[in-house]
């Protein structure tokens, strides 16, 4: 494995973390921070963790493409926006649930910690997907197959597309893009209004992390390009952008990173 397993360093780190029994914040509190992700092997699927101010937090486990929270990447830092849970620790980490993870675009070679499996950290539950072939369904089949929320089938309709921090369209967006396309075709759309927002995150250390200044515009323009590229060329397009960074409070700030697509029938 190209990535080094820094056993000694990690052993020291874990020892320190175990010694710190108290978690400063209480369940239900938001916790937003940037850190290197850490992957810990288990007897089944790997866990993803991150350290912040001397505490280890559990982010998620590996499952499959249908997962609502997907693991971060070694080689990159991750923005963690979570809520402290009262659940027992998983893989040695305090559970953040719900949690939103943004892989930051720039590479960071220092994010390379892989922890070997230790029996005391093995999962105490059956993961939705083993680290290999499934039992014949995606891990979150039921969730992904759930019908979309009730929506008008004839009038104008808004679609909200969420993004990773500083992110553009990625693998998780094909589904919502298809919904927009299908609706626009179904109602013979005459106008599509696309508003891209630039967001920000109030971190738990008091700092505010702003997205790239042009990201709202780029998101909106990319959405228009993708819909046109899918042969949705007959509606008129109105593309605009807006700065929403002032809304960052430290709670649910991930909602500020978005594009709203309004499909208006002809």
């Amino acid at each position: 494995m190209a990535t080094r397993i820094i056993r000694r360093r990690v052993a020291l780190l874990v020892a320190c973390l175990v010694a710190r029994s108290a978690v400063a914040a209480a369940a239900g509190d938001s916790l937003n921070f940037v850190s290197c992700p850490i992957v810990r092997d288990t007897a089944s699927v790997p866990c993803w963790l991150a350290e912040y101010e001397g505490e280890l937090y559990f982010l998620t486990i590996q499952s499959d493409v249908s997962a609502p929270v997907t693991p971060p990447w070694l080689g990159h830092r991750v923005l963690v926006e979570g809520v402290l849970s009262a659940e027992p620790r998983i893989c040695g980490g305090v559970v953040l649930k719900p949690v939103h993870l943004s892989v930051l675009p720039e590479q960071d070679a220092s994010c390379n910690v892989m922890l070997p499996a230790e029996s005391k950290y093995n999962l105490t539950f059956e993961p939705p997907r083993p680290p290999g072939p499934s039992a014949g369904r995606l891990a979150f089949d039921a969730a992904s197959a759930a019908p979309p929320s009730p929506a008008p089938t004839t009038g104008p309709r808004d679609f909200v597309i969420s993004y990773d921090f500083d992110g553009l369209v990625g693998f998780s967006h094909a589904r919502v893009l298809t919904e927009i396309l299908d609706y626009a075709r179904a109602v013979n759309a005459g106008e599509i209004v696309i508003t891209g927002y630039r967001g920000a995150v109030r971190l738990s250390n008091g700092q505010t992390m702003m997205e790239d200044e042009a990201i709202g515009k780029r998101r909106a323009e990319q959405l228009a390009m993708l819909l046109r590229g899918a042969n949705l060329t007959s509606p008129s397009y109105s593309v605009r952008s807006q700065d929403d960074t002032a809304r960052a409070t430290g709670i649910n700030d991930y909602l500020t990173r978005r594009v709203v697509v309004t499909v208006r029938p002809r």
Partner: protein
Amino acid sequence: MLMIGGLGAQSGPMTSWWAPGQGTPLPAFASYGNEHGAAGLFNASGVIETKGHPFFEAIGTNGRACVTCHQPSDAMALSVQSIRARWAATRGQDPLFAAVDGMNCPGLPADEAQSHSLLLERGLFRIALPWPPQRADGTPIDPEFTIEVVRDPTGCNTDPIYGLHSATPTISVFRRPRPVANTKYTTHQNFGVGPFVGKNGMPAATDPDTGRPTSMNLMADARASTLAVQARDAAKNHLQVAGALTAAQVDGIVAFEKQVYAAQVESATAGSLVEPDGPPAFGPRNLAAGEAGVLGNNTTRYVFPMAGKWTTLPRTSSSDANARNAARESIARGHDVFMFRTFWIKDSMHLNTVGLGNPAKRTCSTCHGMHMTGMDTANGWMDIGSTNLPWASEVPLNPWTTAKAQMPLFRVTCKPNVAPHPFLGRVIYTQDPGRALISGLCNDVGTIVMEQFRGLSARAPYFSNGSASSLRELVDFYDRRYAIGFSEGEKQDLVNFLSSL
């Protein structure tokens, strides 16, 4: 060549090379010997009359037919062994060696083997692609990256007529021909096919005749959305057809390609792979009967279903039977390595970026998950490092060798207004930018559409750039790339399994 049993089968020796205009019927079923046993070819529509057939006739201006590079004996692809044999038999005069792409660059001395070194040594044809990339309608794409030629052993990328800085800027990459068989799997309309590519949200290529999204699993870079588009592309660029194919010619080619199936049927050590009570993974008839475009990375369907066969076989007093049974058990173990042996998959674009995390602890069948073929079900381009440095095979340079690099090398620089490639950064060195030469996307640099696993024994070498000369080298590449640590036994079992497909 062996020709055995089955409806419409022929018997008796034939030359294994199928020449354009040969005119003999292609049997409904035929098998052809290869290093690991024999591969079978099954025409689901029966005997194919090749006389006058657009797939088998030299319909271009250079004497080639489609069959030139898609030989029945080579699982409808082309092995480097066949290429070399053809060079020897014709002293390089076969249309196979046409200057347009059978030469390192047009204009070199045609009768010198060195002019065709990439074809003769690695089975590679020159693929000339416009720069900047173009959409299907010919309009240019503004690429996310710039590209420079770092190394040009063929001379073609710096050539004043054919090169990057010519009047018609062109990038030449060198790739293996793919099998034109089992195409219901490569062109399915099933799982994963939608208007937007599941890996990156980009619009999927559509069928120009129907407007429907396609699976984008044809060719190394998915530049052809359908078999018909591919046929027209190949006719123009490889057969040098004057004008365009007629509708009847396209229909004839596509109709043939839709019904022909190829897979190994005989193992040199394990005997017949297609006995009635054998594993249902094997042989072209099982491919013809299989369900296309469905996930097999599960224990309910399997990528290559073995149905529990050959796991433990009896030993008898017959040493031949024991050897055969041992070989069959090795194949079954190889299947289990393929399906269940976990390792850390790291820094692979369009795998680690699609929700599994980086690294992901998974198995071969994670990526090679399509039932019966081991392809990705849809939009199957990925970067495993076969063309991108630091993983691509490179000639070691030192004062004690005269070996020289064979492949071109490009420096790709992602523009400042786009995010860097997540695993390779802003500057990438590659032998072949792959899908990025079509999409113009930085994240697609070096991504190659994965190939089907069928008929492998008939068509070495492997990978799009022919960098693995044998199945063992292919397995060794993965072992190095992902630090898997396969045991010698696991490697041999995997080779035996792959050679049986």
